[in-house]
């Protein structure tokens, strides 16, 4: 069954249909939160809370954006609250350190690891907002429409900012590749 069917049934109070939506979205949502809180336990708790809030409010979801954008927007609010609670600056802000000590150990070769380090360094050289846009596309795999709904920006603005962010990141990356050619 499609997401639309599950959503319709969930809006009529079908917990099983909502559980199917959980099944579809929990991995992505957990990664979205985990990348921004950098804490496994807090990320799992926030993901669960986001789904519970979505479940309580599902009757008010009118499908003006995708379920994923709606869910991620709820999670984004929880991330901001959690980061504020921890005393870290809220959003510009949703960005996370590229050098995450808890990130999985690299399993590929040295060359691939060197390239990843170049990307990490290049990402640190662009503005946090731009880094976040890059991350929403390449890490979270959101569509531009979803990013537009999530960030509350017009679609055209998202495209322009992303184009700019990509161009800046590419300049940084190509400078590094000149220094460390593959």
């Amino acid at each position, binding site marked *: 069954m499609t997401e639309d069917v599950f959503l319709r049934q*969930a809006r009529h109070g079908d917990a099983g249909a909502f*559980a199917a939506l959980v*099944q579809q979205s*929990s991995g992505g949502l957990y990664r979205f939160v985990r990348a921004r809180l950098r804490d496994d336990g807090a990320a799992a708790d926030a*993901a669960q809370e986001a789904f519970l809030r979505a479940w309580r409010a599902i009757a008010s979801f009118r499908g003006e954006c995708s379920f994923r954008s709606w869910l991620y927007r709820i999670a984004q609010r929880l991330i901001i609250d959690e980061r504020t609670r921890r005393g870290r600056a809220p959003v510009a802000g949703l960005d996370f350190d590229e050098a*995450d000590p808890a990130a999985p150990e690299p399993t590929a070769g040295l060359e691939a690891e060197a390239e990843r380090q170049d990307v990490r360094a290049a990402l640190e050289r662009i503005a946090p907002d731009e880094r976040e846009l890059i991350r929403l596309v*390449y*890490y979270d795999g959101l569509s531009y429409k979803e990013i537009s709904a999530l960030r509350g920006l017009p679609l055209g603005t998202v495209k322009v900012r992303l184009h700019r962010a990509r161009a800046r*990141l590419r300049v940084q*990356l190509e400078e590094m590749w000149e220094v460390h050619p593959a």
Partner: protein
Amino acid sequence: MSANDGRGRVPRRQCAAIAPLLPDWDLGRLDAGDADRVRRHVAQCPRCAAEVAAWRRFSAAVTAHFDAARPEVPAGLTGRIAAAVRAEAPGRGSPARVARARVAPGWLRWLGWAGEWAGVLVAAAAALAPIIIAWAAPVTWAAFETRLAQSIAVLGHRLSGILAQAPASLAAGGAAAGTAVGYAWYVLPFILWAAVGLAISYATVGYATGYTIGDESGHVT
């Protein structure tokens, strides 16, 4: 239309329009129309073909970086969340409450409907009765007004005996204060009666079933 300028070169202004689309084209994020436009341009333009190659390397590097940073989802997380959703205590208006309402007995909803509309119909009939009675006889306008006032006085007197909530002025309204004001006084209790009946009906049956009475789809509004 050919993209070439006739000497085998593609004008730079075309490249300027296509360039912002190249990374999204490479990622398959363009709609069919734009994707086709880019594909045709790139096929004829070595400069943009080189740009596509550069963007491809960029995307591969960035994607590899984020792929490596993507954490494992904790085992059992999905089941834990689904269980929490199912265990969520139902509150009024929550989806769980609506789910319960879906199995509420149909007769209760029909009873609510019947009570609600019977009240409205009786109130409407009582409100219209003096007009119908006055209209029934062949009369002039002046005679109609007189007869309407009489009907209001008689019906109002009888109904005020039946309806405890009817004001005392109902019986004498038509004769004492002129037809329009008298009719307004006469009809007001019925409007109030219907409105209060509707509200009680909504509150009681709607609360018992979780349905709003007028909504057959079962949505709580």
